[in-house]
């Protein structure tokens, strides 16, 4: 690095001023000279000169952003510990996502996180492939298929034994070849078995979780309809009213009924019913 040592910064103030500076106001300064001093001090701040550019460049968010974009993840993490404004720029979602994805050349990272510390480490251990368990799969066969160690699959999925994988919907497989990540989309998920947040890659490109949650949603739609109908009958009201009471009690029919009778009582009290 060609930068000079620390001594330079301290010398700044001793350098003869490049821009015309007023001499320090005498102790018995009158209003005129002190106001002109402060005026030119303000002007100095906006002029790029050896006198004052040092800190303002580092306090400018745009500049900081450009600088941090060139930092790898560990340095970005350390930069966020320097001071408040650095922390704010270095913890910005776009900034950390970009730094996280850059070395692996990911196309996109999707997901909501519980804590920002996930972004501070982008080692290959943060990534995994999601493998849907099919008939005939075993840990050993998967280890062969993905060129990883049986031990590593078991560790990642918190498996005590080699068996029992059929009780799970999927297994997470550690990444053996990072090239698979290039131009891919990763989903940040908290895996229940791994008990931590993982950036998951779906090899078929289709996100299984989305499909299964869609399925769940449709069955509960049918269930919701049933609840609505029974509520309607017991309250002896129209669809809209029943819908309203269900919605304010978050789908709980018992609570909906009690709220409804409460409201009825109030109406009778004030003489509306």
């Amino acid at each position: 690095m060609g930068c000079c040592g620390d001594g330079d910064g301290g010398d700044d103030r001793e350098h003869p001023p490049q821009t015309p500076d007023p001499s320090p106001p005498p102790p018995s300064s009158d209003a005129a000279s002190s106001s002109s001093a402060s005026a030119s001090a303000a002007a100095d701040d906006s002029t790029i000169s050896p006198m004052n550019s040092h800190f303002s460049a580092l306090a400018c968010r745009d500049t900081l952003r450009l600088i941090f974009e060139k930092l790898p993840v560990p340095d970005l993490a350390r930069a966020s510990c320097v001071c408040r404004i650095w922390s704010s720029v270095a913890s910005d979602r776009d900034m950390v996502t970009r730094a996280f994805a850059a070395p692996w050349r990911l196309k996109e990272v999707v997901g909501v996180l519980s804590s920002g510390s996930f972004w501070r480490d982008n080692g290959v251990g943060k990534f995994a492939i999601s493998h849907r368990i099919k008939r005939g799969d075993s840990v050993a066969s998967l280890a062969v298929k993905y060129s990883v160690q049986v031990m590593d699959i078991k560790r990642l999925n918190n498996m005590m034994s080699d068996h029992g994988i059929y009780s799970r919907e999927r297994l997470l497989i550690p990444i053996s070849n990072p090239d698979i990540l290039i131009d891919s989309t990763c989903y940040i998920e908290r895996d229940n078995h791994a008990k931590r947040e993982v950036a998951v890659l779906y090899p078929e490109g289709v996100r299984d979780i989305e499909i299964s949650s869609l399925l769940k949603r449709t069955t509960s739609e049918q269930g919701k309809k049933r609840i609505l109908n029974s509520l309607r009958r017991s309250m002896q009201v129209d669809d809209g009213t029943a819908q309203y009471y269900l919605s304010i009690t978050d789908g709980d029919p018992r609570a909906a009924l009690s709220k409804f009778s409460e409201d009825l009582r109030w109406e009778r009290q004030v003489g509306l019913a």
Partner: protein
Amino acid sequence: MSSPPSASASSSPPPCPKKMITLRSSDGATFEIEETAALQSKTLENMIHENCASTLIPVPNITGEVLARVVEFCSKHAEAGVDDESLGAWDEEFVAVDHTTLFDYIRAANFLEIPTLLDLGCQTVADMIKGKTPDEIKKTFKITTACTPEEEEEVRGENQWAFE
């Protein structure tokens, strides 16, 4: 095709190869720069295209000292027939300066919108930051901040692993 040898206040519409633009720094110093070199700066490029460049361009935010070096940079990068390696070496020497000057360049490049200089400056600063602990960074760039001890603890806690 003849053009005035040093036309500091050229008002001729057709662009001539050796057309010079004059810039004036905040402290009144003037500098001449070839139009091709000036095109490195998006700010100046816009002015040239809108024909405001026929007269002196004041650059009120930059002092003469910094502006001189910026002009030098633009001229060097506008030169034809310079291979990448020697240009890279020239760039390295250009940024081998103290921090204050380096930040002067960055701010000037920001103001004048010179992507090459901005990139070079920021990369140099990034290289300075790499590998340093937060305390070292603070010392290097003389950042004295108003972080309360509690805030510092909080931030450190989040990033504890980075200190190992």
